């Protein structure tokens, strides 16, 4: 953990991890007995068994799609061959419902050929049909949203969070796949304006790509889309607007490489590369199939966990903690972090003491000290109107520096979630859930 130095006048300079120049070899981890896939449910629908075309006991082969409805864009692709063991509802962060499908792996692997047959057909439709569940690829669906036409694609070769080097690794190690992926992107979307965002030390690799390359600072949180647009592209995003709203689509380097690999090999990619951060903050690159339970990864890396430790999906600043070792590797899992119980930082019940640390550290210049007062009182609309709630880019720095240890970041995310729920007229705000 990075502590405040004795000289605390300067604001914290958190540097993102730069990939070491000697290319690390990812640790390969195989699934021992069982894989789990989390199928995202549409809002208002709880996960369950009834609505699926598959049921417990069914045989599933590698590359087979498990979808809610046959035409739906919400599907998971099985990375293993085996038998469906169980189908259970699972509740994720902020009440997002999933259906957890567990598959017992069989000895012999069979591969689905449906994608291979359509290989010549490089279209957006085909990608939506097969590749949305590939590593990092879920943002590809943004390209086919006719309500929000995309004019610029930005491929990020830099990971957002601290200590994570997944996308840097892909950019460095798999430049040919990235190149191929960019060609495919150009072909399917007809967009010429493709920009690669890469850290300075990977400029050499990135300049080999036939697109515009821009440098991203290593300073956290420079790799966040909102800040990249403001600082590098010079077109700040209006608050309350998403990147897609203004025609910009951010894709991770990994997803582009996956596109390239998929069409080269004729297989739906299921191997996810991610950074594993151990208790002593040393890092290992890991390659495992989507659906691998975390317990297999801990075992494979020889990491032992005790009671009251913490398992975090994502990096130290923006990740989320999970309560079970059975949680699987997901297509968007760029990092897994474990934290010893001794290092777990706690929040306090103190009010804001107005020290101003958050004001000085906030990259979006949000008046956090006033904002948090309103959020504590659940005055979300006022917070959005008067104190720039929607300008927040969710980097977590305010919580990181808070002297009173207020969970500012969580307050902000909760407020945004509640506002989004009221706007869309859904009834799954936390308050109403508690009332039930």
């Amino acid at each position, binding site marked *: 953990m990075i502590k405040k130095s004795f000289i605390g006048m300067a604001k914290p300079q958190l540097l993102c991890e730069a990939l070491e120049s000697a290319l690390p070899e990812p640790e390969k981890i195989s699934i021992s007995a069982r894989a789990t896939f989390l199928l995202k449910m549409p809002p208002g629908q709880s996960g369950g068994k009834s609505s699926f075309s598959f049921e417990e006991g069914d045989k599933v082969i590698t590359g087979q799609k498990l979808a809610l409805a046959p035409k739906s864009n919400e599907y998971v692709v099985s990375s293993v061959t085996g038998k469906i063991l169980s189908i259970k509802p699972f509740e994720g962060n902020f009440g997002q419902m999933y259906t957890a499908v567990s598959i017992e792996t069989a000895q012999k692997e069979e591969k689905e050929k449906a994608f291979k047959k359509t290989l010549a057909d490089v279209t957006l439709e085909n990608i939506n049909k097969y590749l949305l569940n590939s590593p990092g690829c879920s943002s590809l669906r943004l390209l086919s949203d006719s309500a929000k036409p995309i004019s610029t694609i930005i491929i990020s070769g830099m990971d957002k969070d601290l200590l994570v080097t997944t996308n840097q690794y892909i950019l460095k190690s798999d430049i040919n796949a990235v190149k191929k992926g960019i060609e495919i992107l150009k072909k399917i979307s007809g967009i010429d304006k493709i920009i690669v965002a890469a850290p300075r030390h990977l400029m050499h690799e990135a300049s080999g790509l036939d697109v515009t390359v821009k440098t991203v600072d290593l300073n956290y949180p420079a790799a966040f889309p909102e800040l990249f647009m403001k600082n590098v592209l010079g077109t700040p995003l209006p608050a309350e607007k998403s990147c897609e709203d203004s025609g910009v689509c951010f894709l991770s380097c990994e997803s582009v490489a996956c596109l390239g690999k998929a069409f080269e090999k004729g297989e739906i990619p299921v191997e996810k590369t991610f950074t594993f951060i151990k208790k002593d903050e040393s890092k290992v690159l890991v390659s495992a199939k989507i659906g691998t339970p975390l317990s297999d990864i801990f075992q494979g890396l020889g990491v032992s966990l005790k009671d009251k430790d913490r398992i975090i999906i994502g990096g130290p600043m923006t990740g989320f903690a999970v309560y079970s070792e059975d949680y699987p590797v997901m297509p968007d899992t760029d990092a897994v972090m474990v934290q010893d119980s001794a290092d777990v930082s706690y929040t306090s019940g103190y009010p804001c003491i107005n020290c*101003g640390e958050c004001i000085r550290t906030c990259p979006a210049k949000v*008046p956090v000290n006033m904002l948090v007062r309103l959020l504590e009182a659940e005055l979300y609309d006022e917070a959005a109107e008067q104190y720039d709630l929607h300008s927040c880019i969710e980097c977590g720095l305010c919580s990181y520096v*808070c002297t009173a240890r207020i969970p500012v970041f969580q307050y902000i995310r909760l407020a945004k979630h509640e506002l989004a729920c009221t706007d869309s007229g859904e009834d799954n705000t936390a308050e109403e859930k508690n009332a039930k």
Partner: protein
Amino acid sequence: MQNRQFIVSHAPFWHNGSKISSRSYNTIIAAIPALLLGFFNYGSPAVGVLALSISSAMIWELVMNLITRRPITIGDGNAALIGTVFAMLLPATSPWWLVITGTFFAVVIGKEIFGGIGSNAFNPVVVAVAILMVSWKDFFDFDETLLNYDFEFIAAYPLAQLKHFGTSAITSFDTVDLLMGQQTGGMGATFGLGIIIGGIYLIIKGIIRWEIPVSFLAGVFITALLFNISDSAKYANPVFHICTGYTLIGAFFLATEDSSSPVNFVPMLLCGAFAGIMTVLIRNIGLYVDGVIYSILIMNLICPIMDKIRPKALGKVV
């Protein structure tokens, strides 16, 4: 598989380790140089006043915690800090009841009834001293309270000399002597150099911001300079104003209190400068001998509105 219990909480999972208690204790550490000279000049009564002030401030906070049935907060050091700074402003010979009443006003009236730490609109210490000054003004007449001491330096309160006898009375004060604490006044407020050292320590530690003390002192200096230029026979020079009374302790320890001072860059400069200007206005054309307490009180009042001057947030057009 064994079933282990993991801790689930929200991001971020790191913290820079800062906490309220270390802020409070570091501020108390910064006060030590100034207090040591106070002990040296005034002897054991000064130690007694400080000890009583800190302990009674903590007890008042404990009492309020119990009455309001809120968590016990004396561990965060804020009450001890209030006690320390309050004692620094008092004359070393203050009677015990004055100290206890003062910490009551500071902790209970100044802080707790507003809702505790972070909610006080005014600096608790300043509130307490202002009430005491109005109620028992003889105890803040340093010439009277320190009468029984035999100092090696001029035993007259410089600002009172200026007020009552004009600039001719202050020619005997030497700037270096004043800075080195060779003057009468509050037990921890006279050693200018010690306060500056403590203040710089706090600025380096990031506990107070340089904007407020610097603009406060600049406000005092420039206003005093203008007065001095207009009529040097009637108004003292700016350096004298900075080295005497509560100016330095006000700049570094009073005006910078977290909850009652602004957090944005421009408001910090404005509020600091405003308090500085007010100080000299009160001293030169007002009724009171020293204006620091009242000027900071008025500054606290306008802070929330001043703090509306802030940079535009990301993606905001208006």
